[in-house]
């Protein structure tokens, strides 16, 4: 019986996997009624400035980054749902915590699919001051989803040198 390699398991991680994992997180902890829709085809102009990005690193036999990008309003509504607070009452720390945990859950499930030995980093959450960063040439899979009126970008990228 052959043993799956990291590359074998990476090949199985595609847009459908990201959609499924994101959908499970959304339905379980954010909104069981308005589910994630998509993938949707949008260009960068659809994103309003000032969003939030949360990333978790995967390191070991393979190195990568799982990131979740939300608009500012989307992030606030996600945090509000998770904390069971009105979106307007969410403070910046709560927003960072919630979006970071979303990335942690999706990233952890991606890591669980990989053959080999890996470690999951702690979430790193950033406020975006400009447009959504270009995915670049190392994207393994990426998808833009829609939660009500809010865009959600989920992306798995390969980071050959690890994450600095």
């Amino acid at each position: 019986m052959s043993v799956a390699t990291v590359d074998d398991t990476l090949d199985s991680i595609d847009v459908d996997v990201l959609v499924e994992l994101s959908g499970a997180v959304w339905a379980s902890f954010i909104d069981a009624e308005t589910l994630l829709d998509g993938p949707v085809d949008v260009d960068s102009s659809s994103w309003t400035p000032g969003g939030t990005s949360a990333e978790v690193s995967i390191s070991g036999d393979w190195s990568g980054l799982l990131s979740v990008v939300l608009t500012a309003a989307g992030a606030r509504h996600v945090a509000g749902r998770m904390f069971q607070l009105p979106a307007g009452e969410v403070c910046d720390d709560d927003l960072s915590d919630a979006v970071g945990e979303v990335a942690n859950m999706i990233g952890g499930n991606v890591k669980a699919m990989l053959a080999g030995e890996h470690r999951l980093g702690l979430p790193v959450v950033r406020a975006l001051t400009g447009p959504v960063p270009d995915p670049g040439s190392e994207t393994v899979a990426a998808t833009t989803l829609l939660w009500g009126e809010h865009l959600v970008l989920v992306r798995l990228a390969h980071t050959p040198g690890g994450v600095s």
Partner: protein
Amino acid sequence: MKVLVVDDSRVMRQIVIRTLRQAGFDDLDVVEAANGAEGLDTVSSEEPDLVLSDWNMPELTGIEFLTALRARGDDTPFGFVTSEGSPEMRERADAAGAEFLIAKPFDADTFEEMLSPLLG
């Protein structure tokens, strides 16, 4: 009965506690800690009947927390609630003395199934 919930994410601690209630464990006394190091101290001070811990945390990870507990002779029932639910992680959890590993995202039914034998 008393449950210690350990996770560096405050929102996840709240979600775990809400899910405990949804699973029917309404009469629990719940205490919280934000990482494994705090968890070790809190087990000493609060003597919970069950620990529910994340795996990936700053200061002291969940597996380090469990290992340290068992090393000092503490056999408090311990379960992981983590985003990392691979077979390898489950084996490591079992080998270290965990009763179970619940993968995130989870639901109340899973909590009821996994925790009822320990909480009644």
